[in-house]
């Protein structure tokens, strides 16, 4: 296991969101966490990325307790893209991506040719090389999200945690971002964990789905094992028909509702 949550209890202040949860992330997989609003999926992702300290249990990175490892060392292996990240105003794309090099720099060597090439490579991979000098606030939502992913890439980690990387994007841009994520996985074998809202996209782009409700893992496994009509009723209280996606063959959720 690359990353493991062992009997973790997570919450904010006195409010417990997740209690006694176990989850293992296998190397070289794309895992997507799904679940209704407030089920604790983002909280879990934050804990896996050591942005939130568990009040019980532990998170292990390559078998070692993540909170005992120097945070800079963790940042060289594990990249986290928080939900709806915000950047200082006026920051350019190149500046943002350059920040990804932070864990590799020291006070006496604040910028090196390694940094330069990693940033160039990350920009090229996300197709942003031409926009490098543009301020972030002038970009479209999809471009901005790609810029953030680019920053995580410049960090050079083989483990990436993405919290709702497609929020606020239209469908075309959602697909664009997820294609990029998939490409990062296939081209370099990165291990990726993300939280997604769109079940159909989750099914198409993940090797493994983890369905959560009320701070517990209800089911996990390959998309066709997890995304069933029974599970949708159990996790989302949703009456739906699951058919095969005509393009990819992955499960496709069609809600029943009342208007038909």
């Amino acid at each position, binding site marked *: 296991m690359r990353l493991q949550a062992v009997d973790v209890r997570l919450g904010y202040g006195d409010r417990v969101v997740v209690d006694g949860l176990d989850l293992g992330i296998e190397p070289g997989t794309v895992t997507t966490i799904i679940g209704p609003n407030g089920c604790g999926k983002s909280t879990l992702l*934050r804990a896996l*990325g*050591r*942005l939130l300290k568990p009040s019980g249990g532990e998170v292990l990175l390559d078998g070692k307790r993540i909170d005992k490892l120097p*945070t*800079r*060392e*963790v*940042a*060289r292996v594990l*990249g*986290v*893209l*928080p939900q709806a*990240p*915000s*950047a*200082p*105003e*006026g*920051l*350019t794309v190149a*500046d943002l991506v*350059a*920040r*990804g090099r*932070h*864990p590799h*720099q020291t*006070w*006496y*060597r*604040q*910028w*090196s040719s390694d940094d330069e090439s990693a940033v160039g490579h990350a920009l090229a991979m996300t197709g942003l090389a031409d926009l490098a000098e543009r*301020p972030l*606030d002038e970009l479209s939502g999809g471009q901005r999200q790609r810029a953030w992913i680019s920053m995580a890439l410049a*960090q050079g980690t083989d483990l990436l945690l993405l919290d709702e990387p497609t929020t606020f994007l239209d469908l075309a841009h959602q697909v664009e971002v997820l294609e990029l994520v998939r490409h990062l996985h296939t081209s370099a074998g990165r291990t990726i964990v993300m939280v997604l809202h769109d079940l159909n996209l989750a099914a198409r782009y993940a090797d493994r789905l983890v369905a959560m409700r009320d701070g517990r893992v209800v089911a996990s496994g390959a998309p066709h094992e997890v995304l069933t009509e029974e599970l949708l009723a159990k996790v989302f209280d949703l009456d739906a028909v699951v058919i095969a996606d005509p393009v990819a063959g992955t499960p496709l959720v069609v809600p029943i509702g009342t208007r038909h």
Partner: protein
Amino acid sequence: MKLRVRPRALMVSAIGFVLLGFLMALNMRIGDIPLSLPDVLRATFDPADPAHFVVMELRLPRALTGVLVGAALAMSGAIIQSIARNPLASPEILGVTTGASVTVVAGMVVTGSTYGGASGLLMALGIPVLALAGGLIGAIVVYALAWRRGLDGYRLVLVGIGVAAVFTNVKYWLMTVGDVNDTTRAMVWISGSLNGRGWEHVVPVGLALLLLIPLTLAGARILDVLRFTDDTAVALGVRLNRSRGLMILSAVLLAAVATASAGPIAFVALPSPQIAMRLVGSGRPPLVTSAVVGSVLVAGADLVARTAFSPLELPVGIVTAVLGAPYLIYLLVRMRRGSRV
């Protein structure tokens, strides 16, 4: 040290240095005894020259104090604005300048003419020491009140504004109970003045900058990351509280030594980083360029303070405030429109 240097920042700093040289030359020449540039040069290197005293003991230390204090205040402002993620933040919100004002005014009132009076060397040395102590105490009070399981930039700003209001009122209370001669003297000090600043003011602030500027530059890349949200900073491997604490300490010390030398000169720490940021076109107040802008601002303002109503002299802080207030309004208007500040 290998820093990431931007060509544009380098150019802006170079132009700033040229402008600074020009202002220094003017500050050397203009005064009760006008001197030509050759006069100044001759007086500088020839101790027997009649103008030697004017240049080397009066004008040069005064101008140098201004340049160093301007650099220190501006750099302090650049750090605070980066950490608070707020262009309106300045060392004032750290309790440094207001804390120093309280102790200095208290010192002047208590040891003032009513009680026998302290003057001469004791005042020359005592005031900066009092100011330094007051500045550090003020900062500790703000830091302690703002700390709640960690340090949040926004909370720091709010607590800082509250503490500054309390200190300011204590200062005014002290002035109402003090002797009129002492409070007049205190008034000049709390406006921020370079009047009568000698080598004894240049040396401490110069030495402090020699130590603090490299330390601050070493932390420059951490400031870059601290401008982001806490989650992003932690994800990039920053130890939040430790890094923030060290950078704030550096900002406090810079502001405290500057205030100890020249009093709380207003509107240098706030606009200089913002002006530098716009000139350089970067997303964060650039440390070195901010310092250069701060120096130019104080050197220029002191020239105005000395000459505008000659022979009457204004405290330099009055001039920077008059120049800075419209700029602050401009910043606020820009913010209200929701455009980039």
